[in-house]
């Protein structure tokens, strides 16, 4: 008699080592797994809710300054090191992993207006209200040595900002004019002016390193070419721009933080229309910094909050605030794109997560897969009203909340008036100006 036996290949179900996961045979017949859309929808909804539940972005507060923090700088080689300058002329260097201050320098009398690190990370530069530019060693003085700057340059006027070249021993300061300095010399190798203004900030382009951008108090943004020692173009906006930041992945894109509560992202080749107008702040935007991935940027505002904007969106995806955080003056995105630091009026530097609900530390592969899946689900169902509502919901301090309401009313009134004006005048006589063009006064060649 022939006996039929079931025979199976052990390769199909026996794991190689006991550390492997058990192989679970699955039948992917769609009839066995019905209702895929409703099930995924529920999963997306749960993922969105969990994201909000686990959104705890605040990590640490670094206190020690005795006056408002006026400027921040990242270390180019070390993720854990941060430099900050305060309004009393004190510069502190912090260790983020230990969350302690590792060095304190009384750098200037009066404000520390600007601080920047050298591209190699061995020294840093500060400018202050005492009309000096000082270069400091990154490492502290040895025992018995005095805390002294490497070089000090005494200028004629107050310098309001400083930035270092990304590859060469050159730095730029701004004040009455933009000066380009060689590190070895005590006088600028070239100075560029266009009109007479106090220039509030100057930034080197990180990709095409000979380009500079500056913003002045007469509401304009001026671009310079260091190699040709000439300004390139000037755009005049409605209100003053406080600072600009270049996109580290796209050479010609920069974002300007404006007094009129908005941020403007420009393509520097076409300054007459910004690529995007980012609006959500309810007070002047004081600082902006790009994520090193170039996909997002963070902005600090006078309205005591910081916001994270995707580059291609006009609305922010995240807002961070704390009860004790006052006007945020400076903000930086760390070089690993995971954290955000902000320095504010009330002498503290705060450390935030860039993704509020992200789990810190090492993820197992399954955790990672689940995270990716949840992320994709949220993306897929983002337009569903329930998902949208939960994902968008943020608790805001009362001041910001009421301001938003108020400004919404104002904006609506303005819009209505405009619509009425167009409606009641001869067709074509009142031009419709887009929101992007509305804030640009002129482009000067």
């Amino acid at each position, binding site marked *: 008699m022939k006996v039929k036996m079931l025979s199976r290949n052990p390769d199909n179900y026996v794991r190689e080592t006991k550390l492997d996961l058990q192989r679970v045979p699955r039948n992917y017949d769609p009839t066995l797994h019905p209702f895929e859309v409703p099930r995924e929808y529920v999963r997306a909804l749960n993922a969105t809710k969990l994201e909000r539940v686990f959104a705890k972005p605040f990590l640490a507060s670094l206190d020690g300054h005795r006056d408002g923090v006026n400027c921040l700088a990242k270390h180019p080689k070390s993720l854990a090191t941060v430099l900050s300058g305060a309004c009393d002329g004190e510069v502190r260097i912090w260790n983020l992993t230990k969350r302690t201050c590792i060095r304190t320098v009384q750098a200037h009398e009066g404000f520390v207006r600007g601080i920047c690190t050298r591209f190699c990370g061995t020294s840093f530069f500060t400018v202050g209200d005492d009309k000096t530019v000082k270069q400091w060693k990154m490492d502290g003085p040895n025992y018995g040595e005095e805390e002294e700057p490497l070089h000090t340059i005494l200028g004629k006027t107050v310098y309001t900002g400083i930035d270092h070249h990304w590859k060469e021993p*050159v730095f730029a300061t701004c004040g009455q004019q933009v000066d380009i300095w060689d590190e070895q010399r005590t006088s600028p190798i070239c100075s560029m002016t266009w009109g007479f203004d106090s220039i509030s900030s100057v930034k080197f382009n990180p*990709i*095409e390193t000979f380009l500079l951008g500056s913003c002045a108090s007469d509401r304009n943004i001026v671009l310079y070419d*260091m*190699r*040709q020692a000439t300004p390139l173009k000037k755009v005049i906006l409605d209100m003053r721009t406080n600072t600009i930041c270049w996109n580290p992945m796209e050479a010609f894109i920069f974002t300007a933080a404006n007094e009129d509560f908005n941020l403007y992202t420009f393509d520097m080749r076409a300054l007459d229309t910004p690529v995007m107008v980012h609006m959500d702040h309810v007070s002047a935007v004081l600082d902006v910094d790009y994520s090193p991935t170039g996909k997002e940027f963070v902005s600090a505002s006078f309205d005591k909050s910081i916001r994270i904007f995707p580059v291609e969106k006009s609305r922010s995806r995240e807002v961070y605030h704390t009860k004790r955080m006052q006007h945020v003056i400076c903000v930086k995105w760390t070089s690993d794109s*995971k954290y955000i630091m902000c320095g504010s009026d009330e002498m503290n530097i705060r450390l935030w997560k860039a993704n509020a609900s992200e789990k810190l530390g090492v993820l197992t592969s399954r955790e990672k897969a689940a995270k990716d*899946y949840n992320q994709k689900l949220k993306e897929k169902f983002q*337009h569903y009203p329930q998902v949208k509502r939960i994902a968008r919901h943020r608790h805001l301090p009362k001041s910001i909340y009421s301001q938003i309401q108020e400004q919404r009313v104002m904006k609506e009134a303005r819009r209505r008036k405009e619509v009425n004006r167009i409606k009641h005048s001869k067709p074509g006589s009142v031009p419709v100006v887009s929101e992007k063009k509305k804030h640009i006064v002129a482009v000067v060649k």
Partner: protein
Amino acid sequence: MSATRASKSLLALSQQEELEDLPKEDDDDPLNTSEDEGNSDGERKHQKFLEAIVSLDGKNRRKLAERSEASLKVSEFNVSSEGSGEKLVLSDLLGPGKASSSLSSVKKQLNRVKAKKTVELPLHKEEIARIHREVAFNKTSQTLSKWDPIVVKNRQAEQLVFPLNKEPAAFAPIEHTLSGWKARTPLEQEVFNLLNKNKQPVTDPLLTPMEKASLKAMSLEEAKMRRAELQRARALQSYYEAKARREKKIKSKKYHKVLKKEKAKKTLKDFEVLQKVDPAAALEELEKIETARMMERMSLKHQNSGKWAKSKAIMAKYDLEARQAMQEQLAKNKELTQKLQATSESEEEKGNSEEEGEVLVPDVVNEIQMNGDGPNPWMLRSRPSDTRKIEVQKEPEHLPEPVANEASESEEEERPVAGEEETLLKEFEERRQLRKKSELSQDAEPANIRETKDSSSQEMLSELKSLSQKLSRADQQPRKQKVRSVGPGPQGQREEPAEEEEEPMLFQRPERVQTIEEVEELGRDESLQPMELPSHVPEGQPLERNTSDQPSTPKGKKRKEPMIDLQSLLTAKSSSVKSLAIPTAVQEDEEERAQKQMINEAFAGDDVIQEFLKEKRVAVEASKPKAVDLTLPGWGEWGGVGLKPSARKRRRFLIRAPKGPPRKDRSLPNVIINEERNIHAAAHQVQVLPYPFTHHHQYERTIQTPIGSTWNTQRAFQKLTTPKVVTKPGHIIKPIKAEDVGYRSSSRSDLSVVQRNPPKRLTSHHKEQLKKNSAH
């Protein structure tokens, strides 16, 4: 722009050179008039007064002198011609005084001035700066535009992994790092000496000199040739292996039979040849054949103990063919088991030759014998029942067909054997090709999918043909009957089976039990007149369509079948599929039947379909718009208990609701579609089409493709859930560099350029560029 400016300046220059020798009378100029207003006005008044007095007498009235202005526009800077506002040119002034020679020197001077070229006026400082800026900006824009493709690529990338610059993990070989190292201690020196003596590598430990020498032993060409040879041999081997495997895989018994037969024939031929050429070798061959026969005899193949034989034994009671087959096999057995008697040489020769054929190819012989009236014993088995059935149904057209069939087959049998084999082999080949083609064309032609599928499935089933054909035919007939009784009974269909039958069996393919058209037609017909069919038959009764027990089912029931309405038809959808599988698994079918019976018993009271219909009727009624009755009892007539408003009144005040749109489920008997908007569901629905989508179909499609691992394989799941941006914790992401993306970064440093650039002057090149810009 500069050109216009230059021309202007030239004009101004020429204007300055024009002579200004006319007296200036500046009426416009307020400064001049105010000065001599005082005295001149007084005089004029006095004069007028005197004249007026003189004119009083009326006799010598003097005509008043007309006064006219020399020019409408009088300017301090140039002379204008009279009234017209045109400019006075120097030559105009000189024109009338042609005769006088004193002016000739002036003329010469004038010509000289005209001939002289003017130098361009230097541009304004700001203007120069502006030009500089513009030129620099254009240059910078150009350098920046090289980033465009990279930016676009990064923006559209499915995934970006940061940091972007993956540094290749280049490990320096150890000898490089050790090159600076030298033996210092005595022990080290000793070791080195030893190594050197044995010619072991000291600095380059990868290969010893021996190894290097052995490497060089075989030249490259040789090695290559050898490798190619080996490759060819391997390829050939694998090819033959594959071929053998392919042939072995062919399941068709017939194919193998034919193959065997052919082989036998070949050996026979060889044997005959051998007999003539080399009798000794032929004898050996003969012995071999004898041993083969003995093997055959020893085997239990003809002992009625095989599966086939057993089944035949069961069927032999009822089936003539089976009985015959069994008898044949018994005869065979007897023949084999008989002892061989020694016979005369000639007889032996003859017998041998006869036997050889049988012994060598016993199966084939068997087959031929059985194929006396058909290619397959299974088909023969079921034929009589078929014919019987046909007789019962009294359809004369069907009667001749088995006869014709048999005739054709017998004809085929009578043909020369070799020819048959060839045709058979050819046919197998053809079928295989056809199968391949149909598989291909399934992908290629979506329009013909159904047909090709049909044919391919037929091809697939060609091996099972003999099994299924009879049964399928048996199954087809009642269904066709039904079609006829329901629909208007197309003539073509009626003739179809007859044609089919007339084909020789070999070329016939098993028909699909129920073609799609038939099913569709059925559905259409039923849907056209669903109400006409009264539910005579109780709905819950399952359809018994199993072909195995069909012959036993009474004729009356078959007649009833077409009366069963659509609802019951819907439940019996899969019968056609079943019918193919049934003959191979009779037991299963019985089990199924038993289960069905059990289910029927268990749910005897439940009339689910009836309930559903009722429910649907209620739903349809509820969804119909209601008429509003506005009659008030007691108005305009007597009211009270037991009194009803009059019919006329009721008719008058009844507002009939307009007929609503047709229900969506009106043609779907087994579905209730609720067309009311559900508010609770609406809260979870997207109201507006999201931005990048242009049509709601696109959006729905993206939503409907699941991404979870429940619905996708692991690989697909991973691919679907790849995050857009991946960053590694603890890694510094530097700004993108030209070198990273394959561009050459500017070789000269920014600094050196700055230092070399003194404050510049406007070059001719810049001017050209500027002119271009202004022209735009």
